[in-house]
C-alpha cells in the first residue's frame, strides 16, 4: 500500500498560553478529498499553515509521501508538492493573472522576464484543468471566483499534488461554488490529494471522501462520508461541537407592534463601486426580530452599513421610528434611536486601546460632559454599573478593551448599544467567534430586548442562529431580498433560497 500523501502526527502549536493545536493527528490519502471540519478557532487554519510552512510547530511530525520532513517555509512546502489556497487570497491586486501565477517561478529570457511564456504557461494550465481565466486580466478587475482560480492555478503551476483549500466557499456565489466542486473533483480524479477546510456541514458532505473533525485544537475523529453509511449532519455537528447542538433559545411568542425600522428601495454600492444592495425594502416592527440570512458576500455588509448610515446609499430611504435618517450621518441615525452591534467588534465595535469606560461612552460622549468637559468620574461610575449589569468579566472600567476576551468584548459592545435605549437594534453577526456561553448570553439578551419592544434586525451567517432567534427570516441573494420564510422553515428551504434557487418564484419580499 502506498504511503499517505500527507501524514501529521501529534502536531502541537502554542501561542503564549493557548494551544491552537494540541497533538493533532491527520492523514491525507492519495487522490482523496479530505475535509477538515471544525468550529471557528478549532485550529484548522493553524494546522494547515504549519503544513504550508507559514508556522513552525512546537512538536509533532510531518510526513509527506511517507518521508518525515520539516517545512520551514512556503518555498519548502512547494518543493514538496504542497499548494495552498488561502481564505484571504494571496494575490497582488495590481498585477495580471499571469504575473500572479508565475510569481516566484517566473520564466525568463536572458535577464528579462518572459511574459509571453508566462501567459502561454497559464493558458495551457488553465485549459488542462478547466479553470477558465484571462491571463492578461489584472487581478483587481476580476471576480472573487476567478481570483480563487488564480490561486489554484498557482498551486498547480508549482506542481502541487497536495492542495489545501482554506474555507474556499466562504466568499463564493452558489454558481461559483458548484464550479469549484467540479474543478476539485476533476483534480482529484487526476490524482491530486485535496484538503478542504470548512465548517459547513452540507458542503463537506457533498464534496469530501473523508472528514476529520477538530475541536479546540484536538482531533476528534475521522469518518468516511463517501462510503456506504455516511454520517448525517447532526452526527457531524455533534462531533464538531462536542454536544447536541440545537441551541434552543427560550422565547415567548412574538408580539409585533408598529414598524420602527423602515427600509425602502435601498440601493448601495460596495467599495469597488459595484452595486451590492439592489433595491431592498423591508421593515422591522417593535417587538420582533427579523433576520437576514444569506451566503456571505451577498450584500449583507453593505446593507447594514447603509441602514446605519455608515455608507451613503445610492438610492432609497431609511426611517427609524418615522424619522428619515438616510444619508444624514451615523451620529444622526444613532440620535434617532438606532443601535448597532458591529459585525467586527475589534475593528469597528470597540476602540481596543481605550478603557472600557471610554468605550462605553463612545456613543454618547456628549452626554457625559460637565461644563463642556468630560467627567471621568461620571464615566467610571456609569461604566461600573453597566459592566455589572451585563456581567462583563476580565477587567474593571479602567481596563483596556484589548485585554478582554472576545465574549466579554462583545458584552461591552452590547451594553453600550442597549444602554443608549435604541428603538431599533441592528445586530450584525453578534456571536461570531464567541464560545457557547457567550453565545447564549447574546441570544438571551437579544430576545429580552425584543420583548422590551425594540425592533431588532439580525444579520447572521449561521442558519441555526437565524432559525432560533428570528421571528421572520428574509433571505438575501446578490443584493436582493429573494424571499421571506418563517423560523420554522427547514434548512433545505432556506439553503435553496440562499443559493438563488426558488427565488424566481418568490416575489421580492416586502413584509408590511
Amino acid at each position, binding site marked *: 500500500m502506498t504511503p499517505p500523501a500527507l501524514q501529521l502526527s501529534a502536531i502541537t502549536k502554542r501561542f503564549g498560553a493557548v494551544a491552537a493545536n494540541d497533538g493533532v493527528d491527520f492523514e491525507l490519502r492519495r487522490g482523496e478529498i479530505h475535509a477538515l471540519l471544525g468550529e471557528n478557532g478549532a485550529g484548522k487554519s493553524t494546522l494547515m499553515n504549519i503544513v504550508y510552512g507559514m508556522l513552525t510547530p512546537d512538536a509533532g511530525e510531518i510526513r509527506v509521501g511517507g518521508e518525515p520532513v520539516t517545512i520551514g517555509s512556503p518555498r519548502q512546502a512547494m518543493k514538496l508538492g504542497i499548494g495552498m489556497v488561502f481564505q484571504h487570497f*494571496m494575490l497582488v491586486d495590481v498585477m495580471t493573472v499571469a*504575473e500572479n501565477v508565475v510569481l516566484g517561478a517566473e520564466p525568463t529570457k536572458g535577464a528579462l522576464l518572459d511574459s509571453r511564456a508566462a501567459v502561454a504557461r497559464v493558458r495551457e494550465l488553465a485549459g488542462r484543468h478547466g479553470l477558465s481565466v484571462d491571463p492578461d486580466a489584472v487581478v483587481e478587475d476580476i471576480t472573487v471566483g476567478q481570483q480563487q482560480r488564480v490561486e489554484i492555478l498557482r498551486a498547480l503551476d508549482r506542481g502541487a499534488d497536495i492542495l489545501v483549500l482554506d474555507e474556499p466557499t466562504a466568499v463564493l456565489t452558489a454558481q461559483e461554488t458548484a464550479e469549484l466542486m467540479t474543478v476539485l473533483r476533476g483534480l482529484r480524479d487526476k490524482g491530486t490529494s485535496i484538503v478542504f477546510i470548512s465548517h459547513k456541514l452540507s458542503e463537506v458532505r457533498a464534496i469530501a471522501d473523508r472528514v476529520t473533525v477538530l475541536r479546540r485544537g484536538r482531533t476528534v475523529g475521522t469518518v468516511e462520508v463517501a462510503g456506504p453509511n455516511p454520517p448525517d449532519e447532526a452526527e457531524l455537528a455533534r462531533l464538531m461541537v462536542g454536544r447536541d447542538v440545537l441551541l434552543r433559545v427560550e422565547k415567548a411568542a412574538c408580539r409585533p407592534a408598529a414598524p420602527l425600522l423602515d427600509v425602502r428601495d435601498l440601493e448601495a454600492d460596495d467599495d469597488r463601486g459595484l452595486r451590492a444592495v439592489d433595491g431592498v425594502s423591508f421593515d422591522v416592527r417593535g417587538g420582533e426580530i427579523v433576520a437576514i440570512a444569506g451566503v456571505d458576500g451577498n450584500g449583507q455588509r453593505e446593507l447594514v452599513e447603509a441602514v446605519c448610515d455608515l455608507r451613503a446609499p445610492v438610492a432609497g430611504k431609511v426611517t427609524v421610528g418615522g424619522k428619515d435618517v438616510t444619508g444624514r450621518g451615523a451620529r444622526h441615525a444613532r440620535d434617532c434611536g438606532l443601535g448597532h452591534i458591529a459585525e467586527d467588534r475589534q475593528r469597528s465595535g470597540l476602540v481596543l486601546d481605550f478603557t472600557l469606560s471610554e468605550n462605553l461612552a463612545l456613543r454618547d460622549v456628549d452626554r457625559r460632559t460637565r461644563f463642556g468637559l468630560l467627567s471621568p468620574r461620571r464615566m467610571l461610575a456609569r461604566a461600573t454599573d453597566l459592566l455589572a449589569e451585563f456581567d462583563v468579566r476580565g477587567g474593571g472600567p479602567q481596563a483596556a478593551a484589548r485585554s478582554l476576551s472576545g465574549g466579554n468584548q462583545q458584552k461591552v459592545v452590547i451594553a453600550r448599544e442597549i444602554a443608549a435605549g435604541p428603538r431599533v437594534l441592528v445586530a450584525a453577526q453578534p456571536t461570531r467567534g464567541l464560545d457557547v456561553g457567550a453565545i447564549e448570553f447574546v441570544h438571551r439578551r437579544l430576545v429580552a430586548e425584543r420583548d422590551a419592544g425594540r425592533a431588532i434586525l439580525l444579520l447572521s451567517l449561521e442558519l441555526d442562529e437565524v432559525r432560533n432567534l428570528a421571528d421572520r427570516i428574509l433571505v438575501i441573494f446578490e443584493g436582493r431580498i429573494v424571499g421571506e420564510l418563517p423560523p420554522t422553515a427547514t434548512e433545505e428551504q432556506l439553503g435553496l433560497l440562499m443559493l438563488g434557487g426558488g427565488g424566481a418564484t418568490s416575489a421580492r419580499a416586502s413584509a408590511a
Partner: protein
Amino acid sequence: MSARAASAACAAPAATAGWAGILAGVLALFVALPPLTVRSDALVVVLGALALAAGAAALRGGERKLGGAAILAGLLGAGLGYGAAHTATGGLEAAVSWGALGGATLRFACPLIFAALGGLVSERSGVVNIALEGMMLMGAFFAAYGADKTGSWVLGILIGMLAGAALAAVHAVFAISVRSDQIVSGTALNFVALGLTGYMYVDVYGADGTPNDLPQVPEVHLPTSSLGFAGNSIDDQNLLVWVSLVMVVAVWVFVFRTRAGLRMRSVGENPRAAETVGISVQRTRYLAVIASGALAALGGAFLSIGSVHSFTQNMTAGKGFIALAALIFGRWRPFGLLAATLLFGFSSALAQRLPQLTPGAENVATLLQALPYVLTLVAVAGVIGRSIPPKADGVPYKREG
C-alpha cells in the same frame, strides 16, 4: 496599471482630441516666445480657442481628465501667450532661451532623478523612505570627502554611494527588522545625516571649506549645439546627468521587466502573498532600501562633485523632499517621476529667469519656486488623477508565528 492607462489613452477619439487640445494650448504659448516670437495676438487666440474646443470635445467624449487638462492648457497657453506677445522682446529673449532653460532643467532635475529613483525602489518594496534627504546629504559629503582623499572622482562617487547605503542600512534595520514607524525612523535619520555630515565637514575642513582642487565628475561635450535648442540643452552636461537618464531606463527595466523587479513589486503590494510563493520579504526589502540609499547618494554626489565642486553644510536644502514629491507626482513610476523632476526642474529654471522678464516686479517670480510643492499637493489630492502608492508601502511586515 501602466498598460491599462496607455491603452485607454490610445483607444478613444476623445482622448486624441484631449491630447490635441493640450498640444494646441502649449503651442499658443510657444509661438509667442523666442525664437518664433510671433507678435500678433491672432495666432495665439486661435490656438487657444482650438485647445478649448478640443478640450470640450474630449469632455463630451468622456475623457474628463484629458479634457480638463486641454481646457486648462488652452486658457493658460492663450493667457500667457497673450502676455508674452505684449512684453518687450529683449526681456523675452533674456528669460526664455530654450537651450539654456533646457540645460538648466536637466541640471536641476538630475539630483532629483537619482533620489526619486531611490525612493521608487524603496517604496516599491514597501518601505517608505523619507530619509532620502539624509541619504543625499551623506552622498554629497562623502563623495567630496572620498574624492578629496583618494584624488579620484570615481572613487569619490563610490564612497558617497557606500555612505548613502550605510545610512539606508540603518533605516532598513529599524524599518524592517525592528518594525519602527518608517516615517519616524526616516525623520530621525535626516537629523543624523545632517549632524554627521556637518560634524565631519567642520572637523575635516574647518573654516576653509573643501579644497578647490577637488576631483570633479567630468562634463560630456557633445557637438550638438548647432541642432537647435534641444542640442543646446545637452551639448555640455555633466556625466552624471546622462547617468541619471540612463538610470531611469535601467530602473524601469529592472522594476517592470525583470524577475527581481516583479518580486520586489509583489513584496511592496502584498508581502504575505510574496512570502507564500517563497519570496523573502525581509531580504527583498533590505536590498531595496540599501539600493535606494546608494541611488539617493548618487544624487548627492552630483550636487557636490558633479555640479558645484565643493561641499557645504546642508547643501541638499530639501531636495530629498522634492524628490519624494516627484516620486508621488510621478505615481511611483520611473518615467512618471522623470517627467515630474523635469517639470520641477523647469519651474526652478524658469523661476530664476523670469525676474528678467518683469523688471520691477522680480519678486513675483519667487512664487514660482513653490510650484513643485503646490503641484504635488494637487497631485496627492487626486485632482489630476489619484496617486496611489504601493499597497504595503509603509507597513511593517512580520511573519506569523
